[in-house]
């Protein structure tokens, strides 16, 4: 059964130094509040997993928490590069970072394979791409019926998956609505999982018999964090702060301004006040 905890207690209890951690969100419902709490608690030596690392990962990498990144597209969507990520990869600041680079299709399949307790995922991928040559975790098999060559990637099984969702009910069941990305798969694939939610309701609304729901027995901990996805957005609650995404380019471009921003907007805030 999922346990209701403060954000501080949940992060402290679930995320350990050296863990592989997936804070997933495909542009929607990105768990910024939880990620900032990981920064505040300085939990380092992490392998960060994320299909589309954006500002939150730029911040965690810029704070030196990550020794390795497993990803498929790292950028500030519609704006440009992630300067802290590039600084780490190109100049090893604040520390060198290893990359395991995949395609979106590979990581989406790998999360699904993890949720299905499979050792690997199989799909038609990496055809003619150099990505297969630079990533030992891309291999190929021959279809036993047609002989077609298919790509194989290891299943993703994070130690911890952290996602943000709209609602949890009193029993700890979680409702995700809108662009749900790979959040369900990440939670089901992980050993431990934290879901931050906008609100707790008596019973989940019965919008559709096929709504995307994570039963309480598939989630380790739930923390209430209204606004916990900002500057990303929460379908039905608040819009995406596109202006901040644009502003981040300048903030993150210089190491000093980045560190000052982190100091003011993350380190000096408590977990319960959403950034």
């Amino acid at each position, binding site marked *: 059964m999922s346990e209701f905890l403060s954000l501080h207690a949940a992060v402290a209890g679930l995320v350990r130094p050296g863990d592989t951690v997936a804070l997933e969100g*495909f*542009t*929607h419902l990105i768990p910024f509040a939880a990620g900032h709490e990981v920064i505040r608690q300085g939990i380092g030596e992490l392998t960060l997993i994320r*299909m*589309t690392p954006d500002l939150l990962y730029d911040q965690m990498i810029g704070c030196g928490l990550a020794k390795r990144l497993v*990803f*498929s*597209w*790292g*950028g500030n*969507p*519609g*704006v440009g*590069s*992630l300067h802290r*990520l*590039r600084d780490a*990869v*190109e100049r090893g600041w604040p520390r060198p970072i290893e990359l395991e*680079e995949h*395609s*979106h*299709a590979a990581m*989406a*399949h790998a*999360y*699904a394979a993890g949720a299905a307790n499979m050792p690997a995922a199989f*799909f*038609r*991928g*990496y*055809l*003619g*791409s*150099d*990505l297969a040559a*630079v990533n030992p975790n891309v291999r190929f098999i021959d279809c036993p019926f047609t002989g*077609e060559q298919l790509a194989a990637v290891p299943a993703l099984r994070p130690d911890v998956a952290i996602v943000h969702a709209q609602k949890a009910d009193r029993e700890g069941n979680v409702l995700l609505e*809108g*662009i*749900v*990305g*790979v959040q*369900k*798969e990440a939670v089901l694939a992980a050993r431990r999982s934290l879901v931050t939610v906008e609100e707790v309701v008596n019973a989940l609304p019965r919008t559709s018999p096929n709504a*995307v729901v994570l039963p309480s027995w598939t989630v380790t901990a739930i923390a209430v964090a209204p606004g916990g996805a900002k500057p990303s*957005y929460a*379908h039905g609650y608040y*819009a*995406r702060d*596109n*202006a901040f*995404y*644009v502003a981040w380019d300048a903030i993150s471009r210089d190491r000093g301004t980045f560190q000052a921003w982190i100091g003011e907007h993350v380190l000096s805030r408590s977990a319960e006040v959403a950034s």
Partner: protein
Amino acid sequence: MTWTSVEMMTVTAARALTDDDVCFVGIGLPSAACNLARLTHAPRLRLVYESGTIETRPDVLPLSIGDGELCETALTTVSVPEMFQYWLQGGRITIGFLGGAQVDRFGNLNSTVIGDYARPQVRLPGGGGAPEIAACCRRIFIVMRHSRRAFVDRLAFLTTLGHGPTGQERRALGLTTEGPALLVSDLCIMRPHPETKELQVTSLHPGVTRDRVVEETGWPVAFSGVVVETPAPTARELEVLRDLHARTAAAHGVPAE
């Protein structure tokens, strides 16, 4: 009427889309081209965004492929694993839009690194959906600004397969999809030669000379037998496009592109 080179590219790309197409839409210019087409000559054009939104009809351009408006106006929104399994790999997408930091004469693309992979001069965002978009969509439209820096003789890294390093590898791999069928830049339109699959200039945008294209291309660019002039953007096309960008700027509080 005057127009910018970005407007020229957007209008030209939009014209290549039809009512029967199902487009896998990336962010930026492709998104503008698809929505322009949908709002002008191809109202039944269907837009599918990587984030899982199917047949979405946004009123403003999304800044990212996961903007809220995409979900609100979509027929439905599926998970990202399902999007890549049933919809992209399932072969239901007719047009995939792609771009990159570098393109070569056979439509292969690099969006991974400039320099050596292990110690790159520039670490680019990465392939994202591109490698499988290139393999699974029936046809690929490449949309990129024309410069020697981007149109290179040899890619630093082949992220996304076009027709292959020599133009023949795609076929040799047994792929049944067409690969790059059109390249639209701010200078011209290029299409692959039927046999060699080398991209050739087939149309020059108004005011663009052959020399200009030669100057801006990092390989000895070929011109097809007949090279026409790309029709200029019509007043209606520009009006709809500019309204779209204005609405987007207002909605996102960001300067229009």
